[in-house]
């Protein structure tokens, strides 16, 4: 009897399998296929083994994009995680004000990503943009299309504005789950506000923060639409992150190297996520402080 039940369960999952196969596994296999071939034209392919991989790994422009990407993701985490926690700490706990805050915070998350890019292009334009015009009247010549530093600042601002709410929501959920008794005991023990944060709130938020860090790292490492719309990767190569570089490569009809690069990209993301996860787990349960 049980065997039949199990078979029926597999049968129900079949459609999902089919869809995942079509949309993910088969294209992935195609990429792997391309990554080991030189495609000269439709129908003309030569097996080149690991040549593309070697070429990609020694490509200086790839290294350049990788470094920019790492700096970008690092800055994103450094800004968004503490900022998100800080906002979550100041949000009201209950009542209608809490609901209002949550809704307002969630709004940036709902906007399509290329629209975000467009919003910020206009927002930072020195002539008609609210931000751009204000900064320029203050005397600073702000132009994200010409100045690489300004371009970076704009991309970072956009990214932080877009995604910090996610960290806030996760941190807020983590904070809500701490029972009142902990705060009461801390009061009785005479703990300062900082001690309460360090010894009660932060440890109890460990799990949600792990999720927040992983999500934000992965997303920012893969970022494409927003910076592409905002700067196109420019000025020059200033904001050409890994995925933008990848697209540039593949549109140049160099499918082989692009495919090889995609796989390298995928493995780098996996590696970093694994490192982060292990590090955060060690902090949580291990013997080091």
């Amino acid at each position: 009897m049980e065997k039949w039940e199990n078979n029926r369960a597999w049968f129900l999952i079949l459609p999902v399998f089919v869809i995942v196969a079509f949309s993910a596994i088969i294209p992935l296999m195609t990429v792997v296929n391309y990554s080991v071939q030189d495609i000269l034209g439709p129908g003309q392919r030569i097996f080149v083994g690991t040549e593309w991989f070697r070429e990609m790994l020694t490509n200086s422009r790839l290294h350049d994009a990788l470094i920019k990407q790492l700096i970008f993701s690092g800055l994103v985490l450094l800004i968004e995680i503490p900022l998100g926690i800080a906002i979550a700490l100041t949000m009201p706990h209950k009542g209608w004000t809490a609901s209002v805050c949550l809704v307002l915070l969630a709004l940036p998350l709902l906007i399509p990503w290329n629209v975000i890019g467009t919003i910020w292009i206009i927002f930072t334009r020195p002539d008609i943009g609210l931000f751009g015009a204000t900064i320029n009247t203050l005397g600073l010549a702000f132009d994200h299309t010409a100045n690489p530093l300004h371009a970076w600042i704009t991309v970072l601002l956009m990214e932080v504005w877009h995604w910090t709410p996610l960290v806030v929501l996760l941190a807020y959920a983590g904070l809500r789950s701490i029972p009142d008794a902990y705060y009461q005991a801390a009061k009785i023990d005479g703990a300062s506000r900082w001690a309460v944060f360090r010894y009660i709130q932060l440890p109890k938020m460990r799990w949600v923060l792990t999720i927040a860090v992983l999500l934000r790292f992965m997303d920012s490492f893969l970022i494409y639409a927003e910076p592409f719309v905002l700067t196109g990767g420019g000025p020059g190569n200033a904001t050409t992150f890994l995925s933008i570089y990848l697209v540039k490569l593949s549109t140049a009809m160099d499918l082989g190297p692009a495919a090889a690069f995609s796989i390298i990209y995928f493995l780098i993301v996996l590696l970093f996520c694994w490192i982060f996860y292990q590090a955060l787990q060690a902090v949580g349960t291990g013997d080091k402080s």
Partner: protein
Amino acid sequence: MAKIELENIAHSYQPKPASDDDFALKKVHTVWEDGGAYALLGSSGCGKTTMLNVISGLLTPSQGRVLFDGKDVTKLPPEKRNIAQVFQFPVLYDTMTVFDNLAFPLRNRKVEEGEVKSRVHEIAEILDLSPYLNKRASGLAADAKQKISLGRGLVRKDVAAILFDEPLTVIDPHLKWQLRRKLKEIHTQFGLTLIYVTHDQTEAMTFADKIVIMYDGALLQIGSPDELFEDPAHTFVGYFIGSPGMNLLPCTVEGNRAVLDCGSIPLDPAVAAKAGQGEFKIGIRPLYLELGEQPCDGAVAGRVVSVEFEGSSSIVTVESGCSKFKVRTPEGRPVPADSCWVYFPPERTKLFRDQRLVK
């Protein structure tokens, strides 16, 4: 060490209380003597945790004042009141070792490190936590964690009172004995005022010198365990204390006898004289009723409905007229099979008028 006075305390969780029902605590006026062990006993929702939080300072009462040794502390927060509180589930700082957990309250108050060390070791010794001092607090069993919570309170020299909010809830039954015993030892050793909130009468009666029975936000009776057992001031106290509780049977008073619907029994004449008018009930503990096969004066006829063996005695449920009551018979005493006579000793039979004891 502190004498704690509650002066006309009342508390409502609603901003604008309209009637008596909106008050979680109704007009409490009482004194807790220095160094006493008190238990606040009552069922869920009776206001005992509210009362505890008023004493500890986690809650400011809507009305009334709280005085510690004569000083008005009503508006003072908990950390300024020299109290410690142990909660229902162990509250620990997970990332710290046991030593650091115990040292935390002292370090927050800027006590110098040498004294912190000696104090922590002293308390850890008393609580049998010395072998665990360097372990992470989060890895220990529930009873060890509760001891750590308790230790954080004991480690402070300025602590005047320790308040317990149903602290044995998460402890395994066969470990509860040990923890109760430890609490009693600590009370004898330190002489602190201890206030213990619970719905479990065993904990209350074992732990406390005086028990405060609460019902619906009001104090019904304060007394020692045997006072509550022998002379309950209110039918609720009679019903609540004792397992099973006091048998309460409606009756009318005629002369020196109480007339039940299944017979009549003699009352203590002094009590009967003060009976007056009102709704009467007879109260008697199952322990004091006697079962027999022969009628006699002061006994009522009945039928044995069920017998539950409890190890050292049996609880016999007897039906008589339209009332049911329980009798506790010791091991070895024969139990009649069907019809029986139940004897009510007059010196143990209590009379209640409008729920209150007549004496």
